[in-house]
Protein backbone atom coordinates (compact mmCIF):
# COMPACT_ATOMS: atom_id res chain seq x y z
CA UNK A 1 0.00 0.00 0.00
CA UNK A 2 2.74 2.58 0.88
CA UNK A 3 4.43 1.74 -2.43
CA UNK A 4 1.18 2.50 -4.34
CA UNK A 5 0.80 5.79 -2.48
CA UNK A 6 4.38 6.70 -3.38
CA UNK A 7 3.64 5.89 -7.05
CA UNK A 8 0.66 8.24 -6.95
CA UNK A 9 2.73 11.02 -5.40
CA UNK A 10 5.75 10.52 -7.66
CA UNK A 11 4.69 13.00 -10.41
CA UNK A 12 4.23 15.73 -7.79
CA UNK A 13 7.51 14.79 -6.10
CA UNK A 14 9.30 15.03 -9.45
CA UNK A 15 7.79 18.46 -10.10
CA UNK A 16 8.62 19.56 -6.55
CA UNK A 17 12.28 18.56 -7.03
CA UNK A 18 12.38 20.40 -10.36
CA UNK A 19 10.85 23.55 -8.82
CA UNK A 20 13.27 23.38 -5.85
CA UNK A 21 16.20 23.01 -8.27
CA UNK A 22 14.87 25.95 -10.25
CA UNK A 23 14.60 28.14 -7.16
CA UNK A 24 18.24 27.58 -6.16
CA UNK A 25 19.50 28.03 -9.72
CA UNK A 26 21.76 31.13 -10.08
CA UNK A 27 20.11 34.26 -11.49
CA UNK A 28 22.64 34.46 -14.33
CA UNK A 29 21.56 31.04 -15.63
CA UNK A 30 17.90 32.08 -15.48
CA UNK A 31 18.66 35.35 -17.33
CA UNK A 32 20.54 33.40 -19.98
CA UNK A 33 17.67 30.93 -20.33
CA UNK A 34 15.12 33.75 -20.53
CA UNK A 35 17.06 35.54 -23.27
CA UNK A 36 17.54 32.23 -25.12
CA UNK A 37 13.85 31.36 -25.03
CA UNK A 38 12.93 34.88 -26.16
CA UNK A 39 15.35 34.70 -29.09
CA UNK A 40 14.02 31.22 -29.90
CA UNK A 41 10.49 32.57 -30.26
CA UNK A 42 11.49 35.92 -31.85
CA UNK A 43 11.52 34.54 -35.43
CA UNK A 44 7.86 33.49 -34.99
CA UNK A 45 6.94 37.05 -33.96
CA UNK A 46 8.96 38.62 -36.78
CA UNK A 47 7.65 36.21 -39.42
CA UNK A 48 4.03 36.84 -38.37
CA UNK A 49 4.63 40.59 -38.49
CA UNK A 50 6.17 40.41 -41.99
CA UNK A 51 3.25 38.27 -43.20
CA UNK A 52 0.86 40.92 -41.83
CA UNK A 53 2.78 43.60 -43.74
CA UNK A 54 2.54 41.50 -46.90
CA UNK A 55 -1.20 41.14 -46.35
CA UNK A 56 -1.51 44.93 -46.04
CA UNK A 57 0.59 45.35 -49.18
CA UNK A 58 -1.72 43.13 -51.22
CA UNK A 59 -4.77 44.82 -49.75
CA UNK A 60 -3.37 48.22 -50.80
CA UNK A 61 -2.58 46.86 -54.26
CA UNK A 62 -6.27 46.23 -54.78
CA UNK A 63 -7.07 49.95 -54.48
CA UNK A 64 -8.03 51.69 -57.69
CA UNK A 65 -5.78 54.25 -59.40
CA UNK A 66 -8.29 57.03 -58.62
CA UNK A 67 -8.01 56.25 -54.89
CA UNK A 68 -4.20 56.27 -55.11
CA UNK A 69 -4.21 59.62 -56.95
CA UNK A 70 -6.48 61.08 -54.25
CA UNK A 71 -4.24 59.68 -51.49
CA UNK A 72 -1.16 61.11 -53.24
CA UNK A 73 -2.80 64.54 -53.46
CA UNK A 74 -3.71 64.49 -49.75
CA UNK A 75 -0.19 63.34 -48.90
CA UNK A 76 1.31 66.21 -50.92
CA UNK A 77 -0.79 68.71 -48.92
CA UNK A 78 0.34 67.20 -45.62
CA UNK A 79 3.96 67.21 -46.81
CA UNK A 80 3.70 70.90 -47.73
CA UNK A 81 2.49 71.83 -44.25
CA UNK A 82 5.20 69.64 -42.65
CA UNK A 83 7.87 71.34 -44.76
CA UNK A 84 6.84 74.70 -43.29
CA UNK A 85 6.94 73.19 -39.79
CA UNK A 86 10.42 71.74 -40.46
CA UNK A 87 11.70 75.15 -41.53
CA UNK A 88 10.27 76.77 -38.39
CA UNK A 89 11.80 74.02 -36.21
CA UNK A 90 15.22 74.53 -37.82
CA UNK A 91 15.02 78.27 -37.13
CA UNK A 92 13.96 77.68 -33.51
CA UNK A 93 16.76 75.14 -32.98
CA UNK A 94 19.30 77.63 -34.30
CA UNK A 95 17.87 80.26 -31.95
CA UNK A 96 18.11 77.88 -28.97
CA UNK A 97 21.71 77.01 -29.86
CA UNK A 98 22.57 80.73 -30.13
CA UNK A 99 20.99 81.48 -26.72
CA UNK A 100 22.72 78.48 -25.13
CA UNK A 101 26.06 79.78 -26.40
CA UNK A 102 25.32 83.32 -25.27
CA UNK A 103 24.13 82.33 -21.79
CA UNK A 104 26.60 79.43 -21.49
CA UNK A 105 23.79 77.01 -20.71
CA UNK A 106 24.29 73.24 -20.92
CA UNK A 107 22.76 71.94 -24.14
CA UNK A 108 19.42 70.13 -23.96
CA UNK A 109 19.15 66.38 -24.28
CA UNK A 110 19.43 65.37 -27.87
CA UNK A 111 18.00 62.32 -29.47
CA UNK A 112 18.26 60.36 -32.67
CA UNK A 113 14.88 59.21 -34.01
CA UNK A 114 14.63 55.49 -34.69
CA UNK A 115 11.36 54.54 -36.39
CA UNK A 116 10.24 50.96 -35.82
CA UNK A 117 7.34 48.76 -36.91
CA UNK A 118 5.26 47.11 -34.21
CA UNK A 119 5.64 43.34 -34.48
CA UNK A 120 3.25 42.38 -31.72
CA UNK A 121 0.88 43.98 -29.22
CA UNK A 122 0.23 42.22 -25.93
CA UNK A 123 -2.38 43.91 -23.73
CA UNK A 124 -3.59 42.12 -20.61
CA UNK A 125 -5.07 43.42 -17.37
CA UNK A 126 -1.61 43.12 -15.79
CA UNK A 127 0.68 44.41 -18.51
CA UNK A 128 0.49 46.39 -21.75
CA UNK A 129 3.50 45.86 -24.00
CA UNK A 130 4.47 45.94 -27.62
CA UNK A 131 7.35 44.24 -29.40
CA UNK A 132 9.07 46.32 -32.07
CA UNK A 133 11.14 45.09 -35.00
CA UNK A 134 14.35 46.85 -33.98
CA UNK A 135 16.69 46.06 -31.13
CA UNK A 136 20.31 46.03 -30.11
CA UNK A 137 21.42 45.92 -33.75
CA UNK A 138 19.92 49.39 -34.21
CA UNK A 139 21.39 50.83 -31.02
CA UNK A 140 18.17 50.95 -29.03
CA UNK A 141 18.98 51.14 -25.30
CA UNK A 142 16.89 50.00 -22.33
CA UNK A 143 14.87 52.88 -20.88
CA UNK A 144 14.69 54.92 -24.11
CA UNK A 145 11.39 56.80 -24.56
CA UNK A 146 9.06 55.79 -27.39
CA UNK A 147 6.62 58.22 -29.01
CA UNK A 148 4.05 58.37 -31.81
CA UNK A 149 2.03 61.09 -33.49
CA UNK A 150 -0.35 61.21 -30.51
CA UNK A 151 2.36 61.64 -27.85
CA UNK A 152 4.15 59.25 -25.52
CA UNK A 153 3.92 55.50 -26.15
CA UNK A 154 6.08 54.29 -23.27
CA UNK A 155 9.63 53.28 -22.55
CA UNK A 156 11.84 50.44 -23.78
CA UNK A 157 11.78 47.72 -21.13
CA UNK A 158 13.85 44.98 -22.77
CA UNK A 159 16.25 44.98 -25.70
CA UNK A 160 17.08 41.85 -27.70
CA UNK A 161 19.15 41.29 -30.82
CA UNK A 162 16.53 42.17 -33.45
CA UNK A 163 13.57 43.17 -31.28
CA UNK A 164 12.80 45.34 -28.29
CA UNK A 165 9.91 45.35 -25.83
CA UNK A 166 8.21 48.66 -25.05
CA UNK A 167 6.11 49.01 -21.90
CA UNK A 168 3.18 51.29 -22.65
CA UNK A 169 2.06 54.20 -20.46
CA UNK A 170 -1.30 52.40 -20.20
CA UNK A 171 0.42 49.63 -18.23
CA UNK A 172 -0.71 49.72 -14.58
CA UNK A 173 2.90 49.54 -13.36
CA UNK A 174 4.14 52.64 -15.21
CA UNK A 175 4.64 55.84 -13.21
CA UNK A 176 6.10 59.12 -14.44
CA UNK A 177 6.04 62.84 -13.75
CA UNK A 178 3.82 65.08 -15.86
CA UNK A 179 2.67 68.68 -15.81
CA UNK A 180 -0.52 70.34 -16.93
CA UNK A 181 0.21 72.29 -20.11
CA UNK A 182 1.18 75.84 -19.17
CA UNK A 183 1.97 74.91 -15.56
CA UNK A 184 5.32 73.88 -14.10
CA UNK A 185 4.27 71.95 -10.99
CA UNK A 186 4.86 68.20 -11.36
CA UNK A 187 2.01 65.70 -11.08
CA UNK A 188 2.32 61.95 -10.63
CA UNK A 189 0.89 59.98 -13.55
CA UNK A 190 0.22 56.25 -13.42
CA UNK A 191 -1.19 53.87 -16.01
CA UNK A 192 -4.62 52.81 -14.85
CA UNK A 193 -7.24 50.20 -15.48
CA UNK A 194 -7.90 49.38 -19.10
CA UNK A 195 -11.51 48.21 -19.33
CA UNK A 196 -12.51 46.00 -22.24
CA UNK A 197 -14.08 47.71 -25.28
CA UNK A 198 -13.19 51.16 -23.90
CA UNK A 199 -10.36 53.65 -24.43
CA UNK A 200 -7.37 53.31 -22.08
CA UNK A 201 -7.21 55.49 -19.00
CA UNK A 202 -4.62 56.56 -16.47
CA UNK A 203 -4.69 58.23 -13.08
CA UNK A 204 -3.05 61.40 -11.78
CA UNK A 205 -2.17 62.07 -8.16
CA UNK A 206 -0.55 64.89 -6.18
CA UNK A 207 -2.28 67.47 -8.39
CA UNK A 208 -2.35 71.08 -7.06
CA UNK A 209 -5.74 72.16 -5.72
CA UNK A 210 -6.15 75.09 -8.12
CA UNK A 211 -6.16 72.88 -11.21
CA UNK A 212 -9.71 72.27 -12.32
CA UNK A 213 -10.54 69.67 -14.96
CA UNK A 214 -13.80 68.13 -16.09
CA UNK A 215 -15.11 66.39 -19.21
CA UNK A 216 -16.34 69.77 -20.50
CA UNK A 217 -13.06 71.60 -19.76
CA UNK A 218 -10.30 68.98 -19.93
CA UNK A 219 -6.63 69.80 -19.32
CA UNK A 220 -3.79 68.51 -21.47
CA UNK A 221 -1.19 66.53 -19.52
CA UNK A 222 2.36 66.57 -20.90
CA UNK A 223 5.70 65.15 -19.78
CA UNK A 224 7.56 67.31 -17.29
CA UNK A 225 11.10 66.48 -18.38
CA UNK A 226 12.03 65.61 -14.77
CA UNK A 227 13.67 62.25 -14.23
CA UNK A 228 15.71 62.33 -17.40
CA UNK A 229 13.80 59.79 -19.49
CA UNK A 230 11.18 61.73 -21.43
CA UNK A 231 11.88 65.15 -22.95
CA UNK A 232 9.43 67.81 -21.73
CA UNK A 233 6.24 68.74 -23.55
CA UNK A 234 5.19 65.36 -25.00
CA UNK A 235 1.47 64.62 -24.74
CA UNK A 236 0.48 61.98 -22.19
CA UNK A 237 -3.28 62.41 -22.30
CA UNK A 238 -6.15 64.62 -21.20
CA UNK A 239 -7.22 65.07 -17.59
CA UNK A 240 -11.00 64.72 -17.64
CA UNK A 241 -11.72 64.50 -13.92
CA UNK A 242 -10.09 66.02 -10.86
CA UNK A 243 -11.33 65.46 -7.32
CA UNK A 244 -9.99 66.24 -3.88
CA UNK A 245 -7.71 63.43 -2.74
CA UNK A 246 -8.04 61.50 0.53
CA UNK A 247 -5.28 63.61 2.17
CA UNK A 248 -7.17 66.86 1.45
CA UNK A 249 -3.94 68.53 0.28
CA UNK A 250 -3.89 67.40 -3.32
CA UNK A 251 -6.28 66.39 -6.05
CA UNK A 252 -6.37 63.11 -7.89
CA UNK A 253 -8.06 62.42 -11.18
CA UNK A 254 -8.54 60.45 -14.34
CA UNK A 255 -6.60 60.82 -17.56
CA UNK A 256 -8.03 59.80 -20.92
CA UNK A 257 -5.27 58.37 -23.10
CA UNK A 258 -5.11 58.26 -26.87
CA UNK A 259 -7.29 55.46 -28.29
CA UNK A 260 -4.69 54.84 -31.00
CA UNK A 261 -2.38 53.34 -28.37
CA UNK A 262 -4.41 50.15 -28.77
CA UNK A 263 -3.74 49.84 -32.48
CA UNK A 264 -0.19 51.10 -32.95
CA UNK A 265 1.61 49.90 -36.04
CA UNK A 266 4.64 52.17 -36.05
CA UNK A 267 6.44 54.10 -33.31
CA UNK A 268 9.56 56.22 -32.91
CA UNK A 269 12.18 55.47 -30.29
CA UNK A 270 14.17 58.48 -29.06
CA UNK A 271 17.73 57.21 -28.73
CA UNK A 272 19.87 59.55 -26.60
CA UNK A 273 22.91 60.68 -28.61
CA UNK A 274 25.36 59.89 -25.79
CA UNK A 275 24.28 56.23 -25.97
CA UNK A 276 24.59 56.39 -29.73
CA UNK A 277 28.13 57.71 -29.58
CA UNK A 278 29.14 54.91 -27.20
CA UNK A 279 27.88 52.03 -29.34
CA UNK A 280 28.21 51.43 -33.09
CA UNK A 281 24.81 51.36 -34.79
CA UNK A 282 23.58 49.54 -37.86
CA UNK A 283 22.12 51.93 -40.40
CA UNK A 284 18.31 51.91 -40.59
CA UNK A 285 16.66 50.54 -43.72
Amino acid at each position, binding site marked *: MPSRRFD*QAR*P*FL*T*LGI*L*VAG*WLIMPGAV*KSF*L*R*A*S*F*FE*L*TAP*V*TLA*ASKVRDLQDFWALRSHSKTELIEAGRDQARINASYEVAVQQTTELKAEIARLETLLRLPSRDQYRLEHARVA*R*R*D*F*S*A*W*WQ*RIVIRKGRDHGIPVGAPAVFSGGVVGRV*AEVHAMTAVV*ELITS*PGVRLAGVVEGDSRPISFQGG*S*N*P*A*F*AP*PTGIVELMPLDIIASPTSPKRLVTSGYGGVFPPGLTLGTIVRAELGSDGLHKSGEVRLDERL*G*SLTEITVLVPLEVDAAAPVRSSP
Partner: protein
Amino acid sequence: MNLRRLALLCAPLLLLWGIQTEVNHVLSSHQLFFFSGGLFVAFIALTQPFGAGLAAMLIAGLACDANAPVAFGTHAALFGLAHNIVHRMRDRIPKDDAVAGTLLALFTNFGLFLAFVAILSPGGAAPLPRLAADLVCSQVLVALAAPWFAALQSCCITLVETALALRAERLR
Protein backbone atom coordinates in the same frame (compact mmCIF):
# COMPACT_ATOMS: atom_id res chain seq x y z
CA MET B 1 12.72 10.04 -23.01
CA ASN B 2 12.84 10.18 -26.81
CA LEU B 3 14.03 13.53 -28.20
CA ARG B 4 12.10 13.10 -31.44
CA ARG B 5 8.89 12.61 -29.47
CA LEU B 6 9.67 15.68 -27.38
CA ALA B 7 10.37 17.79 -30.48
CA LEU B 8 7.10 16.71 -32.10
CA LEU B 9 5.20 17.43 -28.89
CA CYS B 10 6.75 20.90 -28.65
CA ALA B 11 6.16 21.88 -32.31
CA PRO B 12 2.33 22.24 -32.00
CA LEU B 13 2.82 24.05 -28.69
CA LEU B 14 5.08 26.60 -30.39
CA LEU B 15 2.47 26.97 -33.13
CA LEU B 16 -0.21 27.46 -30.47
CA TRP B 17 1.93 30.12 -28.79
CA GLY B 18 2.30 31.87 -32.15
CA ILE B 19 -1.46 31.78 -32.72
CA GLN B 20 -2.14 33.03 -29.20
CA THR B 21 0.16 36.04 -29.72
CA GLU B 22 -1.45 36.81 -33.09
CA VAL B 23 -4.94 36.65 -31.59
CA ASN B 24 -3.80 38.93 -28.77
CA HIS B 25 -2.38 41.34 -31.34
CA VAL B 26 -5.78 41.52 -33.07
CA LEU B 27 -7.72 41.76 -29.78
CA SER B 28 -5.49 44.50 -28.37
CA SER B 29 -7.49 47.25 -30.09
CA HIS B 30 -10.52 46.08 -28.06
CA GLN B 31 -8.49 45.76 -24.84
CA LEU B 32 -9.07 42.01 -24.59
CA PHE B 33 -6.63 39.24 -23.78
CA PHE B 34 -6.65 35.58 -24.86
CA PHE B 35 -5.13 33.06 -22.46
CA SER B 36 -4.81 29.50 -23.78
CA GLY B 37 -2.96 27.71 -20.97
CA GLY B 38 -5.59 24.93 -20.89
CA LEU B 39 -4.88 24.01 -24.51
CA PHE B 40 -1.16 23.74 -23.79
CA VAL B 41 -1.77 21.27 -20.98
CA ALA B 42 -4.93 19.23 -21.56
CA PHE B 43 -4.22 16.98 -24.54
CA ILE B 44 -0.59 16.19 -23.75
CA ALA B 45 -1.43 15.32 -20.14
CA LEU B 46 -4.31 13.15 -21.36
CA THR B 47 -2.41 11.08 -23.90
CA GLN B 48 1.35 11.24 -23.35
CA PRO B 49 3.76 9.41 -21.03
CA PHE B 50 4.56 11.36 -17.89
CA GLY B 51 8.22 12.27 -18.58
CA ALA B 52 7.80 13.46 -22.18
CA GLY B 53 4.57 15.31 -21.30
CA LEU B 54 6.08 17.12 -18.33
CA ALA B 55 9.22 18.07 -20.32
CA ALA B 56 7.06 19.49 -23.14
CA MET B 57 5.01 21.45 -20.59
CA LEU B 58 8.09 22.93 -18.96
CA ILE B 59 9.58 23.95 -22.33
CA ALA B 60 6.30 25.55 -23.46
CA GLY B 61 5.95 27.27 -20.09
CA LEU B 62 9.44 28.73 -20.30
CA ALA B 63 8.74 30.01 -23.83
CA CYS B 64 5.61 31.76 -22.46
CA ASP B 65 7.60 33.10 -19.48
CA ALA B 66 10.28 34.60 -21.72
CA ASN B 67 7.60 36.67 -23.48
CA ALA B 68 5.74 37.93 -20.44
CA PRO B 69 6.81 40.26 -17.61
CA VAL B 70 6.38 37.62 -14.92
CA ALA B 71 8.96 35.82 -12.78
CA PHE B 72 10.79 33.44 -15.11
CA GLY B 73 9.39 29.98 -14.42
CA THR B 74 5.85 30.99 -13.39
CA HIS B 75 4.12 29.58 -16.50
CA ALA B 76 6.38 26.53 -16.44
CA ALA B 77 5.58 25.71 -12.81
CA LEU B 78 1.83 26.21 -13.27
CA PHE B 79 1.72 24.21 -16.51
CA GLY B 80 3.72 21.46 -14.81
CA LEU B 81 1.34 21.38 -11.86
CA ALA B 82 -1.75 21.35 -14.10
CA HIS B 83 -0.16 18.59 -16.19
CA ASN B 84 0.42 16.46 -13.09
CA ILE B 85 -3.16 16.94 -11.87
CA VAL B 86 -4.67 15.99 -15.26
CA HIS B 87 -2.21 13.10 -15.66
CA ARG B 88 -3.17 11.81 -12.21
CA MET B 89 -6.89 11.59 -13.11
CA ARG B 90 -6.66 10.75 -16.79
CA ASP B 91 -7.79 7.14 -16.35
CA ARG B 92 -11.26 8.49 -15.57
CA ILE B 93 -11.44 10.70 -18.70
CA PRO B 94 -12.24 9.23 -22.15
CA LYS B 95 -9.23 9.93 -24.38
CA ASP B 96 -10.93 9.76 -27.78
CA ASP B 97 -13.99 11.83 -26.91
CA ALA B 98 -13.70 15.34 -28.40
CA VAL B 99 -16.32 16.77 -26.03
CA ALA B 100 -14.53 15.41 -22.96
CA GLY B 101 -11.21 16.77 -24.26
CA THR B 102 -12.74 20.19 -24.88
CA LEU B 103 -14.33 20.28 -21.43
CA LEU B 104 -11.02 19.27 -19.86
CA ALA B 105 -9.22 22.07 -21.76
CA LEU B 106 -11.86 24.55 -20.57
CA PHE B 107 -11.60 23.50 -16.91
CA THR B 108 -7.79 23.52 -17.04
CA ASN B 109 -7.80 26.95 -18.67
CA PHE B 110 -10.18 28.28 -16.03
CA GLY B 111 -8.00 26.92 -13.22
CA LEU B 112 -4.78 28.29 -14.71
CA PHE B 113 -6.37 31.70 -15.32
CA LEU B 114 -7.49 31.88 -11.69
CA ALA B 115 -3.98 30.87 -10.57
CA PHE B 116 -2.52 33.74 -12.64
CA VAL B 117 -5.06 36.17 -11.17
CA ALA B 118 -4.02 35.08 -7.67
CA ILE B 119 -0.30 35.40 -8.48
CA LEU B 120 -0.30 38.61 -10.53
CA SER B 121 -2.94 40.65 -8.72
CA PRO B 122 -2.88 39.46 -5.10
CA GLY B 123 -4.29 42.74 -3.73
CA GLY B 124 -7.04 42.89 -6.34
CA ALA B 125 -5.06 45.49 -8.33
CA ALA B 126 -6.44 44.37 -11.69
CA PRO B 127 -10.07 45.38 -12.25
CA LEU B 128 -12.53 42.51 -12.01
CA PRO B 129 -14.71 43.45 -15.06
CA ARG B 130 -11.62 43.42 -17.27
CA LEU B 131 -10.50 40.04 -15.89
CA ALA B 132 -14.00 38.65 -16.38
CA ALA B 133 -14.05 39.86 -20.00
CA ASP B 134 -10.63 38.30 -20.61
CA LEU B 135 -11.75 35.02 -19.06
CA VAL B 136 -14.95 34.83 -21.12
CA CYS B 137 -13.03 35.67 -24.30
CA SER B 138 -10.37 33.05 -23.50
CA GLN B 139 -12.92 30.33 -22.72
CA VAL B 140 -14.86 30.95 -25.94
CA LEU B 141 -11.71 30.83 -28.06
CA VAL B 142 -10.40 27.75 -26.23
CA ALA B 143 -13.71 25.97 -26.84
CA LEU B 144 -13.49 26.84 -30.55
CA ALA B 145 -9.84 25.85 -30.95
CA ALA B 146 -9.76 22.73 -28.75
CA PRO B 147 -11.05 20.14 -31.30
CA TRP B 148 -8.66 21.44 -34.00
CA PHE B 149 -5.70 21.52 -31.65
CA ALA B 150 -6.45 18.01 -30.32
CA ALA B 151 -6.55 16.72 -33.92
CA LEU B 152 -3.27 18.48 -34.74
CA GLN B 153 -1.53 17.02 -31.70
CA SER B 154 -2.92 13.56 -32.38
CA CYS B 155 -1.52 13.79 -35.97
CA CYS B 156 1.89 14.75 -34.60
CA ILE B 157 1.79 11.91 -32.07
CA THR B 158 0.80 9.39 -34.78
CA LEU B 159 3.68 10.67 -36.86
CA VAL B 160 6.22 10.22 -34.10
CA GLU B 161 4.89 6.81 -33.11
CA THR B 162 5.03 5.59 -36.73
CA ALA B 163 8.58 6.88 -37.05
CA LEU B 164 9.59 5.17 -33.82
CA ALA B 165 7.96 1.88 -34.87
CA LEU B 166 9.73 1.96 -38.27
CA ARG B 167 13.04 2.67 -36.58
CA ALA B 168 12.55 -0.21 -34.15
CA GLU B 169 11.68 -2.52 -37.06
CA ARG B 170 14.78 -1.45 -38.98
CA LEU B 171 16.98 -2.07 -35.95
CA ARG B 172 15.50 -5.55 -35.54
